């Protein structure tokens, strides 16, 4: 009975040591994962913030480019002028067309 106990003791110690080493390894892996994930997260956050900033800059640019003041100035530089005489085309069917084509209604 005593001999059996003596044999069991080293096994138990070995088991505990193995378990501790396993847990330590696991802790190392976990810490590594956490650290790299944190770094990845930081990079993603930086990227998101950069894109947000670029988005804002582009919006500012669009606002400036789309301003009617700027468009009028640019149009003037290109030599565009306002049309003083213009013709309104009425949606009504011209009388001549109506007389020649009886299928056309008004």
């Amino acid at each position, binding site marked *: 009975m005593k001999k059996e106990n003596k044999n069991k003791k080293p096994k138990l110690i070995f088991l505990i040591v193995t378990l501790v080493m396993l847990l330590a390894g696991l802790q190392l892996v976990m810490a590594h994962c956490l650290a790299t994930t944190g770094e990845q997260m930081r990079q993603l956050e930086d990227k998101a913030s950069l894109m947000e*900033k670029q988005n804002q800059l582009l919006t*500012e640019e669009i*606002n400036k480019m789309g*301003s009617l003041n700027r468009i009028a100035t640019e149009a003037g530089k290109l030599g565009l002028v306002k049309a003083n005489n213009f013709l309104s085309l009425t949606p009504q069917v011209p009388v001549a067309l109506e007389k020649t084509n009886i299928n056309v209604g008004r």
Partner: protein
Amino acid sequence: MDSNWRVNFLLILFILVGFLISARLFYWQIFSFSDLAALAENQHWISFEIPAKRGEILASDGAPLASNEEAFLVFASLPEIKDKVDLIADKLAPLLEPDNPATMAGLIKERLARSDLVWVPLKHEVSRETKSEIESLELDGIGFEEEQKRSYPEASASAHLLGFVGSDINGQPKGYFGLEGYYDLELKGRPGLLRREKDASGKPILIGEVEREEERDGRTLLTTIDRTIQYLISEKLQEGLQRYGASSGSVVVMEPKTGAILGMAAWPNYNPENYVAFDKGLYPNPAVSFSYEPGSTFKVLVMSAALNEGAVKPETRCDQCSGPRIISGYTLKTWNEKYFPNSTMTEVIQHSDNVGMVFVGEKLGKEKMVEYLQKFGLGQPTGVDLEDETSPKLRPLEEWRQIDLATVCFGQGIALTPLQMTRAVASIANGGYLVTPFVVQKVISEEGVSEIRPKIGEQILKSATTMMMTEMMVNAVDNGEAKWAKPKGYRIAGKTGTAQIPVAGHYDQEKTIASFVGFAPADEPQFVMLVTLREPSSSPWGAETAAPLWFDIAKEIFTYKKIQL
């Protein structure tokens, strides 16, 4: 006995010390609790305010009228400054204040010389380009902090309508005048707060507690302003002021059926991005905050009231129009001293006949006159969503004298704002309903969109009255003094006005306010517009200044809105 004395002494001493400790603890726990808690809080928590983005103001097509731009605060960290203060000031001043570098250099020197501070702000709202230029100087101790700046892409075209963003007494951004002032609460949002535990040296503890109160950005306003019409009226008004030599002027364009403001411009104006460089007197919007005597444009309101009450008809003949009228010792004449005996009411409006209008006023009577002025919304603000609206008071009924009744018939002796006049005439254009003018049609936030519906008030004029009045106004345009300027083919209902300006209890003989009010197309009005010009020098008359400007703008609107003949 001896030992008992010692025991008792110790006992009393312990009780006394115990009491003192308890009292001190009581003091700390009860009386000084809040102060000590705050001290402890400051020792192990660090807080950052996360600023909320101010909401945008959009035109009806979604284009921004007011937006936000990235800007920077330039500051100096005094312990890190290595160069001489004079050298830094001379290098920075021309970049920070190109218009006035000497004053800026003085301010920089003064701030950099402070020995009681470690951090001093030098200039807010510096552009990205200026920041790059300063960075290239490689000055130690000069840093930047990101902030937001209000920008107005259409520059000063809508300055009076939009207002501007300044600072309140705590240095926080605050909207003043126009939409920025009226909707300041909606636009400014609520800043967020980030709280983190910190260590003894003040650095954040990475695994410490973090509390975050999310910021809520300001709401965005979608307005009824048509960007093209706004630009158009602003440009045309400037041209008109130069052409007619007027000192100031305003244009209001409104949708008569709903009261939606399509455009509102006044000149001279200011740049809302740099409002401090302009005179404060330019900040209020003249279209809603300045009152004027309307002159003959007011005749259409008096005539409408008389027609509505059946006091006169368009074909009623004036039997007192053969010469000047003397009322309460005052002689009332026509504007050109020409008289048209037995003229009809249509002709009275066409000739803008003051004596004929006195006849109408007498037919209507004092009580009905006051009743209709109130019905047209005079004497009270229109309720438009702009901060600076005011309203001149309407004289109480018991204070009306016979001469007051007579002069009000041709728009003298009564004051109103341009927007009040536009609103009153809109009721003739829309079948008799008094509408409430409005500028914002939707408020857009993260929670959703809330729509602001037009407020259509009571019917103050019968439909038949508005039709008769419209025809009289069309006739006035086609055959009146301003017929030369009218665009051919279009049916436009309108009326000219020339009012003398009251100065120190009497009317100035030289200075006038010329105006034209009208709507088009007369049969299905899409817009009602009022043009006012103050002290035009080319001619004092509305028919020769405000009317051609009105028609000039209307022609452009017809083309833009595809309104056909």
